[in-house]
């Protein structure tokens, strides 16, 4: 019990420190839009400049929930129908990064091409 309290305190401090580090350069990012519709993510290819932090805004225009997910980009985001949300992606090296809709894994796939 005492160990649990101590660990909780420790993690709270760690979280606080992490926040400071993360918010330093969070403003004015270039933003790319993805529309989720009928099980697809449109466009299927998003071109992004290398070495820059950027934002992907996902808009769900479909009739059911979607989950924008990418293990390559280390992000996941669940969206109710009609919802709009975003993920901030850390600067990437040139290459191709896959993303998919985890609620429509057969149809909703795409990639981010960094160049």
């Amino acid at each position, binding site marked *: *019990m005492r*160990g*649990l309290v101590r*660990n909780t305190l420790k*993690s709270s401090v760690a*979280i606080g420190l*992490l*926040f400071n*580090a*993360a*918010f330093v350069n*969070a403003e004015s990012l270039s933003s790319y839009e993805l529309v989720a519709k009928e099980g697809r993510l449109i466009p299927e290819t998003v071109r992004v400049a290398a070495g820059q932090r950027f934002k992907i805004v996902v808009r769900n225009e479909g*009739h*059911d*929930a*979607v*989950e924008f*997910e990418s*293990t*390559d*980009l*280390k*992000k996941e*985001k*669940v*969206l*109710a*129908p009609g*919802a*709009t*949300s*975003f993920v*901030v*992606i*850390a600067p990437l*090296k040139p290459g191709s990064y*896959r993303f*998919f809709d*985890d*609620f*429509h*894994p*057969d149809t909703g*796939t795409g990639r981010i091409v960094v160049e």
Partner: protein
Amino acid sequence: MANALFIVWRESVEALLVIGILWAWLKVRGELERGRWFLMGGIAGGVLLAGALAVAMTVVQDELAGTALEYFRAVMVLLASALILQMVLWMVRHGRSMKKQLTAGAEAAFTRAGGLGLGVLVAIAVAREGAETAIFLYGLSFSTGSGLWLGALSGFLLAIATAWLLARGLRFFSYAIFFRATSVLLLLLACALWVAGVEQLIGLEALPSLIDPLWDSSALLDDSHGFGNLLANFAGYRARPSLMLLLAVAAYWLVVWFWTRRRVASPSPENSMTMEAPR
């Protein structure tokens, strides 16, 4: 309908598996009487937290709050992973002594520290996937046709059946095999949670990725589809892992190996004599 079934099954089976195994452990140890209240409390707390999380995930629109929410979810999975690890290691230490040999002191220790950890773990397990399931079901309410709801319900019932069969079925073997198999299952799950948490922290730039990716095995086994996706969800498989992630996984299994080896290497005499098949 098949899609709704599979998604609800996938989203709920993890939490149900954790609950099922903990339930079975408590039962085998004869501690279900007290333990069940922590389990129930955890489930109730988890459902409430899932609802709150689902609302927060839908409502939050600004960057600061979005990042805060991502940190919260990352810390949540890391805590769940640590609690599972702690629980399995605790069982490795105490699991082999049957209930009649437990002193009153040991039972009290379970109630205070173990019970709270148990409740928190169950709450997180339920809340984590529960929030996503809640949004998925909310989405279903906009679609027409009852087939989807039937699929979702079947998925949930199937998840209960899966967890029950695994926890119950394994008890047909000896106590030792049951205990070992469920421990391995939980350790794999905890590894998947650990991977998810570390990955989220890398994505938030709180941790460096070092080399990313270290290799690409997506042509061999893709982590976004089918079996690879299941493996990703339940054991932490990644087709394109970063060096940081690999180090984190190595550290995890090293801790597991170190602790279990230490316990197995030095069994106290009372522990080694009490292996017993379940009723």
